């Protein structure tokens, strides 16, 4: 029983009256032990009167109400804070074990009735004689000698038979009785939790509670709390955990001095407690996993949103997926979106808005996919499938988002914008100033009026009759011509014959020229013409190439052609005379003779029809 007596501060009192809110609370322990007195108090932060306590029907009122008031004023940085509290305390005794409710109390503050909260009190049965502590199916305990008070730690698993990835809450709970000054040291050896993903549930402060366990009432505290997600199937044993505590043991010492007597002397004694091992049976997930199984086990919902479906090229938009629910959220794979071509997709941003609870992670996982549309057109972003194993319905489930159809319009000036970028091109190293290309664009429209100009249709259509006639008609005419003139072609084909035929003509031409030279008394020209006339005539008539032209060849061919020896001699004579006369002094008479000889020779040879 505690009582607080404090000094009244009038100023504090006076000020507290004007405190803004009236708080009237009931305070009672959550658990009490039958047969042991406990206190219940009603406190109000303003001056109250006329307290009407609830009916303590299931409890015996041992004493009360005791009234106490306390107030304090503090100045912090020139600010004054005042508190005031008026407390009414009853001492009660529970007689029977069970859970009871105590209704609210009523008090008048400033003429108004204010109600306090009701409380539930669990009455634990009285202690029995200490027994041999047993082990329950899923928990164990370690016991330490009861003569010094009892300390043990239980390993409490919420489930021992789970599916893979299903959350298990594992708690190391401390039980102690008749122990003074208990403190947990840092010397804690926790198991490795091999085969599990473990997540610790942080506890702000250790709160001791009373619990009736195996016939005794213990102070209890949850030391460590984990949520475990089995990562493989089979029987997985969690090794024992060791905890070290410090307890204070009163030591009776011999009185050495007069002062020693005033103080109790305590010694810190370390105490060890081992939380027993526990085996978890993990069932594998059933077969038949869907193709896109996300690894999720639990129960989830899927939502998706898109910022816009109508946009222009180079616009950015975001698709957001929200997976909410409960389960092994931390292990969910980010669903992949099967993007069509033409989108620039950035790495998704994942926001985890979940907290760890005893049944796993609870909350939501938000995945944002930032995207930029790079090409115009109409595109469909296919549904995103999210598959998980539902632990409640024991089956695989697949959630889907809707398809999104996106219209990407061409951005204004999308093509033109590029052309505005200056491209300075320099080609030369000379001092001359090159024409600098500042930009490029298309040429301007044709404003001339020749838009009405009809596209001229060709007068001949490809593949038409006229077309083919254009080819066939000239071809026909040409063939006809060739047939008609085929004799000439034949003649043309025989070049030697042409020369043969032309031989006399050519010879006469030369003789004519020789005659002219004779008249002009041009000796050189005369002999040249005569010689040429004879040689060319023979070459043409006998079809001897100029290269092979010599007297021997000519003689041989003339003999072959049955020309008389006399004529052959004449031919040789003319050739020799013409050859020599050029270089020898001759008379006009000789020239006349040669001219006449040559003419008769050619005539005679012509008659021979060589």
């Amino acid at each position, binding site marked *: 029983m505690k009582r607080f007596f404090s000094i009244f501060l009038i100023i504090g009192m006076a000020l507290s009256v004007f405190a803004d809110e009236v708080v009237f609370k009931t305070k009672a322990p959550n658990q009490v032990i039958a047969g042991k007195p406990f206190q219940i108090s009603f406190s109000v932060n303003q001056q109250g009167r006329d307290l009407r306590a609830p009916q303590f029907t299931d409890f015996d009122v041992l004493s009360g109400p005791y009234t106490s008031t306390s107030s304090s004023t503090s100045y912090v940085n020139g600010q004054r804070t005042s508190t005031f509290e008026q407390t009414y305390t009853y001492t009660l005794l529970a007689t029977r074990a069970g859970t009871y409710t105590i209704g609210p109390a009523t008090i008048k503050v400033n003429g108004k009735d204010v109600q306090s909260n009701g409380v539930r009190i669990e009455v634990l049965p009285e202690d029995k004689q200490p027994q041999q502590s047993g082990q329950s199916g899923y928990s164990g305990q370690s016991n330490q000698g009861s003569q010094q008070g009892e300390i043990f730690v239980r390993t409490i698993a919420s489930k021992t038979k789970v599916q893979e990835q299903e959350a298990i809450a594992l708690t190391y709970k401390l039980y102690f009785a008749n122990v003074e000054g208990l403190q947990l040291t840092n010397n804690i050896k926790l198991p490795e939790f091999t085969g599990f993903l473990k997540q610790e549930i942080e506890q702000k402060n250790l709160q001791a509670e009373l619990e009736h366990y195996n016939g005794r009432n213990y102070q209890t505290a949850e030391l460590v709390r984990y949520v475990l997600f089995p990562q493989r199937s089979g029987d997985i044993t969690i090794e024992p955990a060791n905890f070290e505590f410090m307890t204070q043991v009163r030591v009776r010492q011999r009185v050495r001095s007069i002062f020693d007597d005033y103080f109790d002397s305590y010694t810190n004694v370390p105490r060890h407690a081992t939380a027993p091992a526990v085996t978890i049976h993990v069932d594998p997930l059933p077969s038949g996993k869907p193709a896109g199984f996300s690894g999720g086990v639990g129960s989830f919902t899927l939502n998706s949103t898109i910022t816009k479906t109508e946009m222009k*090229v180079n616009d950015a938009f975001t698709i957001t997926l929200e997976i909410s629910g409960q389960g092994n959220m931390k292990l969910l794979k980010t669903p992949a979106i099967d993007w*069509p*071509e*033409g989108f620039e997709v950035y790495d998704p941003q994942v926001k985890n808005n979940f907290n760890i609870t005893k049944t796993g992670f609870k909350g939501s996982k938000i995945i944002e996919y930032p995207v930029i549309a*790079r*090409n*115009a*057109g109409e595109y469909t972003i296919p549904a995103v499938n999210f598959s998980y194993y539902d632990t409640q319905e024991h089956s695989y489930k697949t959630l889907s988002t809707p398809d999104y159809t996106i219209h*990407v319009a*061409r*951005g*204004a*000036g*999308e*093509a*033109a914008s*590029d052309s505005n970028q200056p491209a300075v091109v320099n080609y030369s190293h000379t001092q001359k100033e090159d024409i600098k290309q500042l930009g*490029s*664009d*298309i*040429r*301007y*429209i*044709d*404003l*001339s*009026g*020749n*838009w*009405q*100009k*009809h*596209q*001229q*249709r*060709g*007068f*001949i259509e*490809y*593949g038409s009759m006229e*077309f083919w006639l*254009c*080819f066939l008609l*000239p*071809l026909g*005419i*040409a063939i006809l*011509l*060739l047939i008609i*003139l085929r004799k*000439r*072609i034949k003649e*043309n084909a025989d070049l030697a014959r042409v020369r043969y035929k032309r031989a006399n003509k050519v010879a006469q031409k030369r003789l004519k020229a020789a005659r002219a030279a004779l008249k002009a008394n041009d000796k050189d020209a005369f002999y040249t013409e005569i010689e040429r006339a004879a040689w060319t005539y023979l070459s043409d008539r006998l079809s001897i190439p100029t290269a092979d032209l010599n007297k021997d060849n000519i003689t041989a061919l003339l003999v072959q052609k049955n020309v008389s020896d006399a004529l052959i001699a004449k031919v040789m004579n003319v050739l020799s005379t013409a050859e020599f006369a050029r270089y020898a002094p001759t008379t006009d008479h000789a020239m006349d003779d040669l001219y006449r000889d040559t003419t008769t020779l050619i005539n005679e040879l012509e008659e021979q029809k060589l």
Partner: protein
Amino acid sequence: MRNILLAALLLLSPITYHLSPLYAQSDFDLANIAYTEGRYAEAAAGYEALLQQQQNATLYYNAGNAYFKQGELAKAILNYERALRLEPNHKDAKFNLEFAQSKITDNIEEHDFFLSIWAQAVRNSMHEHTWIILSIVLFLLTLTGILVFLLGREPWLRKTAFHTAWVALLFCIIAGVSANSLHKRDTLRNEAIITQGIVNAKASPDRSGTDLFTLHEGTKVTIRETLGEWVNVKVGKNEGWIPAKDLERI
């Protein structure tokens, strides 16, 4: 009274005086004004309306420009190509087509054999009818050459005629092949421009077909076959099926 009204209208008219719609002779001028003032969508619609009535290289060229200014690369290329179909020597259309082609993503030319590119350039340099006339003239020249060669008397003349004949025949064949190729192209209309921003060519005419390659807007393809709503296209060495709605025939 009428003059006052006209003057008032003129004053109200925000359009530059020399291109005032009051003086617009035709829809063509109206479309040109729209283009001049940057109302490209309107201009394009105007040219398209005129093209419904008659096909003309100038109209196609101007429409191509209007589309280009709107960023509609595929439609711009399509219209330039059509302009060049009608007037193969339209310099501005050629220039702008090349400019527009420099903006598209796909670089197809690289995959083609240089000779075939060169042959195409030769073929496209003239109109089909020009080729036809050229081939006929060259054919006549060939025949004349042959005749002179066969019937001629003078050796130099015959020699000249002979060489003229074979050179003329060679060019006649080139002209004929070009005319034939152009005729085939224009009757089959087997060339098309991709209009969809990006399209995947598939191995089969089926949505579930394997994706073979990706084509981007503005790329010119050759249509080989049509099957329902799918067409088999050839680009360089690649062949695949794409939805017919994603391209437009030139």
